[in-house]
Protein backbone atom coordinates (compact mmCIF):
# COMPACT_ATOMS: atom_id res chain seq x y z
CA UNK A 1 0.00 0.00 0.00
CA UNK A 2 2.01 2.93 -1.22
CA UNK A 3 2.56 5.42 -4.02
CA UNK A 4 5.87 4.31 -5.46
CA UNK A 5 8.01 5.74 -8.24
CA UNK A 6 11.25 4.27 -9.49
CA UNK A 7 13.80 5.91 -11.77
CA UNK A 8 11.35 8.49 -13.09
CA UNK A 9 12.43 10.52 -16.07
CA UNK A 10 10.67 13.00 -18.31
CA UNK A 11 11.61 15.15 -21.29
CA UNK A 12 9.33 17.90 -22.59
CA UNK A 13 9.09 17.97 -26.38
CA UNK A 14 10.95 14.70 -26.83
CA UNK A 15 11.94 14.03 -30.42
CA UNK A 16 11.52 17.64 -31.59
CA UNK A 17 15.19 18.47 -31.22
CA UNK A 18 14.27 21.13 -28.64
CA UNK A 19 13.55 18.64 -25.85
CA UNK A 20 13.93 19.88 -22.27
CA UNK A 21 15.23 17.26 -19.87
CA UNK A 22 12.88 17.96 -16.96
CA UNK A 23 13.45 14.99 -14.68
CA UNK A 24 15.73 11.99 -14.34
CA UNK A 25 16.37 9.17 -11.88
CA UNK A 26 13.84 10.17 -9.24
CA UNK A 27 12.56 7.64 -6.67
CA UNK A 28 9.53 8.33 -4.47
CA UNK A 29 7.93 6.31 -1.68
CA UNK A 30 4.79 7.68 -0.11
CA UNK A 31 2.70 5.69 2.36
CA UNK A 32 -0.60 6.77 3.94
CA UNK A 33 0.06 8.72 7.14
CA UNK A 34 3.27 10.28 5.81
CA UNK A 35 4.15 13.81 4.75
CA UNK A 36 6.71 14.01 1.96
CA UNK A 37 8.18 17.41 1.14
CA UNK A 38 9.53 17.74 -2.40
CA UNK A 39 11.76 20.81 -2.44
CA UNK A 40 13.71 22.54 -5.17
CA UNK A 41 14.29 25.85 -6.86
CA UNK A 42 12.10 27.05 -9.73
CA UNK A 43 12.59 24.83 -12.76
CA UNK A 44 13.97 21.87 -10.79
CA UNK A 45 11.25 19.51 -12.07
CA UNK A 46 9.02 19.51 -8.98
CA UNK A 47 5.74 20.16 -10.78
CA UNK A 48 6.62 17.64 -13.50
CA UNK A 49 7.24 15.04 -10.81
CA UNK A 50 3.84 15.77 -9.26
CA UNK A 51 2.07 15.39 -12.62
CA UNK A 52 3.83 12.07 -13.19
CA UNK A 53 2.81 10.82 -9.74
CA UNK A 54 -0.81 11.79 -10.42
CA UNK A 55 -0.79 10.00 -13.77
CA UNK A 56 -1.38 13.22 -15.73
CA UNK A 57 1.89 12.68 -17.61
CA UNK A 58 3.23 9.31 -18.70
CA UNK A 59 6.84 8.75 -17.61
CA UNK A 60 9.37 8.43 -20.43
CA UNK A 61 11.64 6.50 -18.07
CA UNK A 62 10.91 4.52 -14.91
CA UNK A 63 7.51 3.69 -13.46
CA UNK A 64 4.80 4.87 -11.08
CA UNK A 65 2.51 2.53 -9.18
CA UNK A 66 -0.41 3.41 -6.90
CA UNK A 67 -1.04 0.49 -4.57
CA UNK A 68 0.37 -1.76 -7.27
CA UNK A 69 -1.51 -0.27 -10.26
CA UNK A 70 -0.47 2.31 -12.84
CA UNK A 71 -1.97 5.72 -11.87
CA UNK A 72 -3.91 6.16 -15.12
CA UNK A 73 -5.53 2.72 -14.86
CA UNK A 74 -9.25 2.60 -14.04
CA UNK A 75 -8.55 1.02 -10.66
CA UNK A 76 -6.37 3.99 -9.69
CA UNK A 77 -8.98 6.62 -10.61
CA UNK A 78 -9.81 8.66 -7.55
CA UNK A 79 -6.89 7.21 -5.60
CA UNK A 80 -4.60 10.19 -6.12
CA UNK A 81 -5.96 13.70 -5.52
CA UNK A 82 -3.95 16.67 -6.75
CA UNK A 83 -4.10 20.38 -5.90
CA UNK A 84 -2.49 22.59 -8.54
CA UNK A 85 -0.89 25.99 -8.09
CA UNK A 86 -3.45 28.71 -7.33
CA UNK A 87 -6.32 26.21 -7.23
CA UNK A 88 -8.76 28.96 -6.26
CA UNK A 89 -8.62 30.19 -9.87
CA UNK A 90 -10.72 27.15 -10.79
CA UNK A 91 -13.82 27.88 -8.72
CA UNK A 92 -16.94 27.71 -10.85
CA UNK A 93 -19.93 26.87 -8.65
CA UNK A 94 -22.24 29.39 -7.01
CA UNK A 95 -21.50 28.24 -3.49
CA UNK A 96 -18.40 26.95 -1.76
CA UNK A 97 -20.20 23.75 -0.79
CA UNK A 98 -21.28 23.01 -4.37
CA UNK A 99 -17.74 23.59 -5.62
CA UNK A 100 -16.18 21.30 -3.04
CA UNK A 101 -18.86 18.67 -3.79
CA UNK A 102 -17.87 18.61 -7.49
CA UNK A 103 -15.32 15.80 -7.07
CA UNK A 104 -17.43 13.40 -4.98
CA UNK A 105 -20.41 14.06 -7.28
CA UNK A 106 -18.31 13.01 -10.28
CA UNK A 107 -17.06 9.91 -8.51
CA UNK A 108 -20.59 9.07 -7.31
CA UNK A 109 -19.40 8.07 -3.83
CA UNK A 110 -21.64 8.84 -0.86
CA UNK A 111 -23.74 11.99 -0.46
CA UNK A 112 -21.59 14.68 -2.14
CA UNK A 113 -22.85 17.46 0.16
CA UNK A 114 -22.07 15.49 3.31
CA UNK A 115 -18.62 14.60 2.03
CA UNK A 116 -18.03 18.23 1.03
CA UNK A 117 -19.12 19.53 4.44
CA UNK A 118 -16.68 17.09 6.06
CA UNK A 119 -13.87 18.27 3.78
CA UNK A 120 -14.57 21.92 4.59
CA UNK A 121 -14.49 21.15 8.31
CA UNK A 122 -11.18 19.32 7.79
CA UNK A 123 -9.53 22.47 6.42
CA UNK A 124 -10.92 24.56 9.28
CA UNK A 125 -13.76 26.22 7.37
CA UNK A 126 -17.10 25.86 9.16
CA UNK A 127 -19.49 24.38 6.56
CA UNK A 128 -22.44 26.31 8.03
CA UNK A 129 -20.66 29.66 7.77
CA UNK A 130 -18.76 29.20 4.51
CA UNK A 131 -20.74 26.49 2.67
CA UNK A 132 -23.43 28.82 1.36
CA UNK A 133 -21.15 31.72 0.39
CA UNK A 134 -19.93 32.45 -3.11
CA UNK A 135 -16.34 31.25 -3.60
CA UNK A 136 -15.50 34.71 -4.95
CA UNK A 137 -16.14 36.33 -1.55
CA UNK A 138 -13.48 34.33 0.30
CA UNK A 139 -10.18 35.80 1.46
CA UNK A 140 -6.93 34.46 -0.02
CA UNK A 141 -6.29 31.90 2.71
CA UNK A 142 -9.94 30.86 2.91
CA UNK A 143 -10.16 30.42 -0.87
CA UNK A 144 -6.99 28.34 -0.92
CA UNK A 145 -8.30 26.13 1.88
CA UNK A 146 -11.68 25.75 0.16
CA UNK A 147 -9.91 24.70 -3.03
CA UNK A 148 -7.84 22.19 -1.07
CA UNK A 149 -11.08 20.92 0.47
CA UNK A 150 -12.23 20.26 -3.10
CA UNK A 151 -9.35 17.80 -3.43
CA UNK A 152 -9.81 16.33 0.07
CA UNK A 153 -13.43 15.60 -0.80
CA UNK A 154 -12.15 13.04 -3.30
CA UNK A 155 -11.17 11.05 -0.19
CA UNK A 156 -8.20 9.66 -2.04
CA UNK A 157 -5.55 7.80 -0.05
CA UNK A 158 -2.86 10.01 -1.63
CA UNK A 159 -2.92 13.79 -1.78
CA UNK A 160 -0.48 15.81 -3.86
CA UNK A 161 -0.17 19.59 -3.54
CA UNK A 162 1.75 22.00 -5.79
CA UNK A 163 2.98 25.13 -3.96
CA UNK A 164 -0.03 25.18 -1.61
CA UNK A 165 1.15 28.26 0.32
CA UNK A 166 2.35 30.42 -2.59
CA UNK A 167 1.06 33.98 -2.49
CA UNK A 168 -0.64 33.74 0.90
CA UNK A 169 -0.07 36.00 3.88
CA UNK A 170 1.44 34.51 7.02
CA UNK A 171 -1.92 33.77 8.60
CA UNK A 172 -3.18 32.12 5.39
CA UNK A 173 0.00 30.04 5.22
CA UNK A 174 -0.40 28.90 8.83
CA UNK A 175 -4.01 27.84 8.26
CA UNK A 176 -3.19 25.97 5.05
CA UNK A 177 -0.22 24.18 6.64
CA UNK A 178 -2.37 23.12 9.60
CA UNK A 179 -5.03 21.76 7.23
CA UNK A 180 -2.45 19.85 5.18
CA UNK A 181 -0.59 18.31 8.11
CA UNK A 182 -3.90 17.26 9.67
CA UNK A 183 -4.75 15.42 6.45
CA UNK A 184 -1.95 12.98 7.22
CA UNK A 185 -4.40 11.15 9.50
CA UNK A 186 -6.29 10.00 6.39
CA UNK A 187 -3.81 10.04 3.52
CA UNK A 188 -0.25 10.08 2.33
CA UNK A 189 0.52 13.70 1.54
CA UNK A 190 3.20 15.05 -0.81
CA UNK A 191 3.87 18.78 -0.95
CA UNK A 192 5.90 20.36 -3.73
CA UNK A 193 7.38 23.73 -2.81
CA UNK A 194 10.29 26.08 -3.41
CA UNK A 195 9.71 27.46 0.09
CA UNK A 196 9.78 24.31 2.25
CA UNK A 197 10.84 25.85 5.57
CA UNK A 198 7.42 25.86 7.15
CA UNK A 199 6.78 22.24 6.12
CA UNK A 200 10.11 20.75 7.21
CA UNK A 201 9.13 20.64 10.89
CA UNK A 202 6.17 18.42 9.96
CA UNK A 203 7.81 16.29 7.28
CA UNK A 204 8.54 12.58 7.51
CA UNK A 205 10.61 12.51 4.35
CA UNK A 206 12.28 15.14 2.22
CA UNK A 207 13.24 14.96 -1.44
CA UNK A 208 15.37 17.77 -2.84
CA UNK A 209 15.71 18.26 -6.60
CA UNK A 210 18.18 20.25 -8.63
CA UNK A 211 17.76 20.62 -12.38
CA UNK A 212 15.60 17.51 -12.52
CA UNK A 213 17.87 15.20 -10.52
CA UNK A 214 17.59 14.26 -6.83
CA UNK A 215 20.34 15.72 -4.62
CA UNK A 216 18.91 14.46 -1.34
CA UNK A 217 16.22 11.96 -0.33
CA UNK A 218 15.54 10.69 3.16
CA UNK A 219 14.15 11.37 6.59
CA UNK A 220 14.39 14.76 8.29
CA UNK A 221 17.00 13.32 10.72
CA UNK A 222 19.07 12.19 7.73
CA UNK A 223 18.58 15.63 6.21
CA UNK A 224 20.26 17.24 9.23
CA UNK A 225 23.25 14.91 8.80
CA UNK A 226 23.55 15.70 5.10
CA UNK A 227 22.30 19.26 5.04
CA UNK A 228 25.01 20.44 2.65
CA UNK A 229 23.71 18.02 0.00
CA UNK A 230 20.22 19.34 0.57
CA UNK A 231 21.46 22.91 0.27
CA UNK A 232 23.17 22.09 -3.03
CA UNK A 233 19.63 22.18 -4.45
CA UNK A 234 19.87 25.95 -4.12
CA UNK A 235 17.61 26.04 -1.06
CA UNK A 236 18.70 26.96 2.46
CA UNK A 237 17.49 25.46 5.68
CA UNK A 238 15.82 27.87 8.10
CA UNK A 239 18.37 30.08 9.93
CA UNK A 240 17.33 28.61 13.30
CA UNK A 241 18.12 25.11 12.07
CA UNK A 242 21.36 26.14 10.37
CA UNK A 243 22.63 27.72 13.58
CA UNK A 244 22.20 24.44 15.45
CA UNK A 245 23.70 22.36 12.62
CA UNK A 246 26.74 24.63 12.39
CA UNK A 247 27.18 24.38 16.19
CA UNK A 248 26.94 20.61 15.91
CA UNK A 249 29.57 20.59 13.17
CA UNK A 250 31.90 22.33 15.63
CA UNK A 251 31.36 19.63 18.22
CA UNK A 252 28.35 20.84 20.20
CA UNK A 253 26.18 17.97 21.49
CA UNK A 254 22.67 18.67 20.21
CA UNK A 255 20.58 15.49 20.30
CA UNK A 256 17.42 17.00 18.76
CA UNK A 257 17.39 19.86 16.29
CA UNK A 258 14.52 22.24 16.96
CA UNK A 259 12.63 24.37 14.44
CA UNK A 260 11.44 26.93 16.99
CA UNK A 261 13.82 29.66 18.25
CA UNK A 262 12.97 28.72 21.84
CA UNK A 263 13.91 25.06 21.25
CA UNK A 264 17.06 26.12 19.46
CA UNK A 265 18.14 28.41 22.29
CA UNK A 266 17.56 25.66 24.83
CA UNK A 267 19.49 23.09 22.78
CA UNK A 268 22.42 25.44 22.22
CA UNK A 269 22.63 26.43 25.88
CA UNK A 270 22.36 22.82 27.01
CA UNK A 271 25.20 21.94 24.68
CA UNK A 272 27.31 24.66 26.28
CA UNK A 273 26.49 23.38 29.74
CA UNK A 274 24.47 26.42 30.75
CA UNK A 275 21.28 25.88 32.76
CA UNK A 276 18.60 28.27 33.57
Amino acid at each position, binding site marked *: MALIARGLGYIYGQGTGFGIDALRGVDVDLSPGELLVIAGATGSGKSTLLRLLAG*LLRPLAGSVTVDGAAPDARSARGRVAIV*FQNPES*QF*FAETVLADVAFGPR*NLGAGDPDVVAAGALAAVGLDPDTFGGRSPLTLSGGEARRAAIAGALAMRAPYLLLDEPTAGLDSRGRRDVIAAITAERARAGVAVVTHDPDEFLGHADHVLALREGAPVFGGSVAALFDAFREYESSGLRLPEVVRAQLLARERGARIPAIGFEPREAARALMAARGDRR
Partner: protein
Amino acid sequence: MRVPVAFGQYVPVESPIHALDAKTKMGLVAAFTAGVFMVDGFTGLAVMALVVVAAVVVSRVPWRIAVRGVRALSFILAFTLLAHGLRWNPATVTLVRLGPLAVDGPGLVTGVFFAARIMLLVVGTSLLTLTTTPVQLTDGLERVMRPLEVVRFPAGEVAMMLTIALRFIPTTAAEAEKIVIAQTARGARFDEGGPIRRARAFVPVLVPLFINLFRRAEDLALAMESRCYRGGRGRTRLNASVMRPADWMTLTLATAFMIAVGVAL
Protein backbone atom coordinates in the same frame (compact mmCIF):
# COMPACT_ATOMS: atom_id res chain seq x y z
CA MET B 1 -7.10 16.30 -23.49
CA ARG B 2 -5.55 19.21 -25.35
CA VAL B 3 -7.11 22.53 -26.21
CA PRO B 4 -6.66 23.09 -29.95
CA VAL B 5 -4.88 26.25 -31.02
CA ALA B 6 -5.93 27.70 -34.36
CA PHE B 7 -3.65 27.24 -37.36
CA GLY B 8 -1.68 30.15 -38.74
CA GLN B 9 0.63 30.78 -35.79
CA TYR B 10 3.82 32.67 -36.54
CA VAL B 11 6.78 30.48 -37.54
CA PRO B 12 9.97 32.17 -36.33
CA VAL B 13 12.46 31.55 -39.14
CA GLU B 14 14.34 34.01 -41.30
CA SER B 15 13.36 34.34 -44.93
CA PRO B 16 12.90 37.03 -47.59
CA ILE B 17 9.15 36.84 -47.01
CA HIS B 18 9.54 37.28 -43.25
CA ALA B 19 11.65 40.34 -43.98
CA LEU B 20 8.95 42.04 -46.06
CA ASP B 21 6.88 44.76 -44.42
CA ALA B 22 3.51 43.64 -43.07
CA LYS B 23 1.73 46.15 -45.32
CA THR B 24 3.45 44.67 -48.37
CA LYS B 25 2.31 41.21 -47.39
CA MET B 26 -1.25 42.40 -46.83
CA GLY B 27 -1.21 43.95 -50.29
CA LEU B 28 0.16 40.72 -51.73
CA VAL B 29 -2.56 38.68 -50.06
CA ALA B 30 -5.20 41.05 -51.48
CA ALA B 31 -3.72 40.78 -54.98
CA PHE B 32 -3.39 37.00 -54.66
CA THR B 33 -7.01 36.65 -53.51
CA ALA B 34 -8.20 38.81 -56.40
CA GLY B 35 -6.08 36.76 -58.80
CA VAL B 36 -7.38 33.42 -57.54
CA PHE B 37 -10.96 34.61 -57.92
CA MET B 38 -10.35 36.08 -61.38
CA VAL B 39 -8.86 32.99 -63.04
CA ASP B 40 -11.52 30.79 -64.60
CA GLY B 41 -9.63 27.76 -65.83
CA PHE B 42 -7.35 25.09 -64.53
CA THR B 43 -4.36 26.67 -66.26
CA GLY B 44 -4.76 29.85 -64.24
CA LEU B 45 -5.28 27.85 -61.07
CA ALA B 46 -2.11 25.87 -61.81
CA VAL B 47 -0.14 29.11 -62.20
CA MET B 48 -1.55 30.34 -58.87
CA ALA B 49 -0.64 26.99 -57.30
CA LEU B 50 2.92 27.47 -58.53
CA VAL B 51 2.92 30.93 -56.93
CA VAL B 52 1.81 29.39 -53.61
CA VAL B 53 4.41 26.62 -53.82
CA ALA B 54 7.15 29.12 -54.60
CA ALA B 55 6.03 31.39 -51.75
CA VAL B 56 6.02 28.54 -49.24
CA VAL B 57 9.47 27.39 -50.35
CA VAL B 58 10.91 30.92 -50.18
CA SER B 59 9.27 31.53 -46.77
CA ARG B 60 11.01 28.43 -45.33
CA VAL B 61 7.81 27.56 -43.46
CA PRO B 62 7.67 23.75 -43.09
CA TRP B 63 5.09 22.22 -45.46
CA ARG B 64 3.42 20.38 -42.62
CA ILE B 65 2.58 23.71 -40.99
CA ALA B 66 1.81 25.54 -44.23
CA VAL B 67 -0.94 23.10 -45.25
CA ARG B 68 -2.34 22.63 -41.74
CA GLY B 69 -5.23 24.98 -42.50
CA VAL B 70 -6.48 22.71 -45.28
CA ARG B 71 -7.17 19.91 -42.85
CA ALA B 72 -9.47 22.14 -40.83
CA LEU B 73 -11.46 22.73 -44.01
CA SER B 74 -11.73 19.07 -45.05
CA PHE B 75 -15.48 19.10 -44.39
CA ILE B 76 -16.09 22.16 -46.55
CA LEU B 77 -13.89 20.74 -49.29
CA ALA B 78 -15.75 17.42 -49.24
CA PHE B 79 -19.08 19.26 -49.28
CA THR B 80 -17.98 21.37 -52.26
CA LEU B 81 -16.97 18.27 -54.20
CA LEU B 82 -20.17 16.37 -53.41
CA ALA B 83 -22.52 19.31 -54.00
CA HIS B 84 -21.10 19.79 -57.47
CA GLY B 85 -20.41 16.18 -58.36
CA LEU B 86 -23.55 14.34 -57.25
CA ARG B 87 -26.88 14.35 -59.07
CA TRP B 88 -30.16 12.86 -57.89
CA ASN B 89 -31.78 10.63 -60.51
CA PRO B 90 -30.55 12.51 -63.58
CA ALA B 91 -31.97 11.83 -67.05
CA THR B 92 -28.60 10.99 -68.50
CA VAL B 93 -25.84 9.31 -66.56
CA THR B 94 -22.45 10.71 -67.37
CA LEU B 95 -20.06 8.80 -65.11
CA VAL B 96 -21.17 6.36 -62.39
CA ARG B 97 -24.62 5.46 -61.06
CA LEU B 98 -25.21 4.29 -57.47
CA GLY B 99 -28.94 3.57 -57.26
CA PRO B 100 -30.68 6.92 -57.75
CA LEU B 101 -27.42 8.78 -57.13
CA ALA B 102 -25.12 9.53 -60.01
CA VAL B 103 -21.73 11.14 -60.28
CA ASP B 104 -21.80 13.90 -62.85
CA GLY B 105 -18.59 14.38 -64.83
CA PRO B 106 -18.74 18.12 -65.60
CA GLY B 107 -20.12 18.76 -62.12
CA LEU B 108 -17.25 16.88 -60.56
CA VAL B 109 -14.78 18.95 -62.57
CA THR B 110 -16.42 22.15 -61.33
CA GLY B 111 -16.28 20.78 -57.77
CA VAL B 112 -12.57 20.05 -58.10
CA PHE B 113 -12.03 23.58 -59.44
CA PHE B 114 -13.80 25.24 -56.51
CA ALA B 115 -12.17 22.95 -53.95
CA ALA B 116 -8.74 23.66 -55.39
CA ARG B 117 -9.50 27.38 -55.28
CA ILE B 118 -10.41 27.18 -51.59
CA MET B 119 -7.25 25.20 -50.82
CA LEU B 120 -5.05 27.73 -52.64
CA LEU B 121 -6.73 30.60 -50.82
CA VAL B 122 -6.24 28.99 -47.42
CA VAL B 123 -2.59 28.07 -47.91
CA GLY B 124 -1.75 31.35 -49.64
CA THR B 125 -3.42 33.68 -47.17
CA SER B 126 -2.25 31.73 -44.09
CA LEU B 127 1.30 32.53 -45.19
CA LEU B 128 0.59 36.09 -44.04
CA THR B 129 0.14 35.11 -40.40
CA LEU B 130 2.78 32.37 -40.61
CA THR B 131 5.49 34.84 -41.65
CA THR B 132 4.36 37.99 -39.78
CA THR B 133 4.34 38.44 -36.02
CA PRO B 134 1.00 39.55 -34.58
CA VAL B 135 2.54 42.86 -33.55
CA GLN B 136 3.84 43.62 -37.06
CA LEU B 137 0.48 42.59 -38.43
CA THR B 138 -1.56 44.92 -36.26
CA ASP B 139 0.93 47.76 -36.78
CA GLY B 140 0.47 47.25 -40.50
CA LEU B 141 -3.30 47.11 -40.11
CA GLU B 142 -3.28 50.37 -38.20
CA ARG B 143 -1.35 52.06 -40.99
CA VAL B 144 -3.65 50.61 -43.65
CA MET B 145 -6.77 51.68 -41.72
CA ARG B 146 -5.49 55.18 -40.97
CA PRO B 147 -7.22 56.84 -43.97
CA LEU B 148 -10.52 55.73 -42.39
CA GLU B 149 -9.86 58.13 -39.50
CA VAL B 150 -11.24 60.82 -41.80
CA VAL B 151 -14.66 59.26 -41.23
CA ARG B 152 -13.90 58.99 -37.48
CA PHE B 153 -13.00 55.32 -37.61
CA PRO B 154 -10.80 54.66 -34.51
CA ALA B 155 -7.92 52.93 -36.34
CA GLY B 156 -5.46 53.12 -33.44
CA GLU B 157 -7.91 51.72 -30.91
CA VAL B 158 -8.99 48.91 -33.22
CA ALA B 159 -5.37 48.01 -33.86
CA MET B 160 -4.68 48.01 -30.10
CA MET B 161 -7.72 45.78 -29.51
CA LEU B 162 -6.48 43.34 -32.14
CA THR B 163 -2.98 43.36 -30.66
CA ILE B 164 -4.33 42.57 -27.21
CA ALA B 165 -6.70 39.89 -28.49
CA LEU B 166 -3.92 38.17 -30.42
CA ARG B 167 -1.52 38.51 -27.52
CA PHE B 168 -3.89 36.72 -25.14
CA ILE B 169 -4.92 33.81 -27.37
CA PRO B 170 -2.00 31.58 -26.27
CA THR B 171 -2.38 32.68 -22.64
CA THR B 172 -6.05 31.84 -22.67
CA ALA B 173 -5.48 28.51 -24.40
CA ALA B 174 -2.87 27.57 -21.78
CA GLU B 175 -5.22 28.63 -19.00
CA ALA B 176 -8.10 26.58 -20.46
CA GLU B 177 -5.84 23.55 -20.65
CA LYS B 178 -4.77 24.05 -17.03
CA ILE B 179 -8.38 24.23 -15.84
CA VAL B 180 -9.37 21.18 -17.90
CA ILE B 181 -6.57 19.17 -16.27
CA ALA B 182 -7.51 20.39 -12.79
CA GLN B 183 -11.18 19.52 -13.23
CA THR B 184 -10.25 16.16 -14.77
CA ALA B 185 -8.24 15.45 -11.62
CA ARG B 186 -11.47 16.03 -9.70
CA GLY B 187 -13.24 13.35 -11.72
CA ALA B 188 -14.77 15.53 -14.46
CA ARG B 189 -15.20 13.72 -17.79
CA PHE B 190 -15.32 15.66 -21.04
CA ASP B 191 -15.52 12.75 -23.45
CA GLU B 192 -18.56 10.86 -22.18
CA GLY B 193 -22.28 11.07 -22.91
CA GLY B 194 -24.27 12.85 -25.61
CA PRO B 195 -23.72 16.35 -26.97
CA ILE B 196 -25.75 18.08 -24.23
CA ARG B 197 -23.95 16.27 -21.45
CA ARG B 198 -20.62 17.07 -23.09
CA ALA B 199 -21.51 20.74 -23.42
CA ARG B 200 -22.58 20.84 -19.79
CA ALA B 201 -19.32 19.20 -18.75
CA PHE B 202 -17.55 22.37 -19.92
CA VAL B 203 -19.36 24.66 -17.47
CA PRO B 204 -16.70 24.00 -14.77
CA VAL B 205 -14.09 25.07 -17.34
CA LEU B 206 -15.79 28.06 -18.93
CA VAL B 207 -16.91 29.77 -15.72
CA PRO B 208 -13.44 30.05 -14.15
CA LEU B 209 -11.94 30.79 -17.57
CA PHE B 210 -14.23 33.80 -18.03
CA ILE B 211 -13.80 35.00 -14.45
CA ASN B 212 -10.03 34.92 -14.91
CA LEU B 213 -10.33 36.65 -18.30
CA PHE B 214 -12.33 39.54 -16.81
CA ARG B 215 -9.86 39.82 -13.94
CA ARG B 216 -6.98 39.90 -16.38
CA ALA B 217 -8.74 42.49 -18.53
CA GLU B 218 -9.22 44.70 -15.49
CA ASP B 219 -5.57 44.36 -14.48
CA LEU B 220 -4.48 45.13 -18.03
CA ALA B 221 -6.73 48.19 -18.27
CA LEU B 222 -5.31 49.48 -15.00
CA ALA B 223 -1.74 48.80 -16.11
CA MET B 224 -2.32 50.60 -19.41
CA GLU B 225 -3.96 53.55 -17.74
CA SER B 226 -1.18 53.84 -15.18
CA ARG B 227 1.19 54.10 -18.14
CA CYS B 228 -0.91 56.93 -19.56
CA TYR B 229 -2.60 55.15 -22.43
CA ARG B 230 -5.23 57.50 -23.80
CA GLY B 231 -6.26 55.97 -27.08
CA GLY B 232 -4.54 56.00 -30.41
CA ARG B 233 -4.13 59.75 -30.90
CA GLY B 234 -0.66 61.19 -30.51
CA ARG B 235 0.99 57.80 -30.17
CA THR B 236 4.32 57.32 -31.89
CA ARG B 237 6.30 54.16 -32.53
CA LEU B 238 9.72 53.08 -31.35
CA ASN B 239 10.11 50.77 -34.33
CA ALA B 240 8.16 52.43 -37.12
CA SER B 241 7.68 50.04 -40.01
CA VAL B 242 8.83 51.54 -43.30
CA MET B 243 8.20 50.34 -46.82
CA ARG B 244 11.62 49.86 -48.38
CA PRO B 245 12.31 49.86 -52.16
CA ALA B 246 12.28 46.05 -52.07
CA ASP B 247 8.76 46.19 -50.59
CA TRP B 248 7.45 48.52 -53.28
CA MET B 249 9.08 46.46 -56.01
CA THR B 250 7.75 43.14 -54.75
CA LEU B 251 4.30 44.59 -54.26
CA THR B 252 4.12 46.23 -57.70
CA LEU B 253 5.55 43.32 -59.67
CA ALA B 254 3.59 40.60 -57.86
CA THR B 255 0.32 42.53 -58.07
CA ALA B 256 0.82 43.20 -61.77
CA PHE B 257 1.66 39.53 -62.36
CA MET B 258 -1.36 38.21 -60.48
CA ILE B 259 -3.81 40.60 -62.09
CA ALA B 260 -2.33 39.70 -65.48
CA VAL B 261 -2.76 35.99 -64.76
CA GLY B 262 -6.29 36.65 -63.52
CA VAL B 263 -7.25 38.56 -66.65
CA ALA B 264 -5.47 36.31 -69.16
CA LEU B 265 -6.19 32.81 -67.87
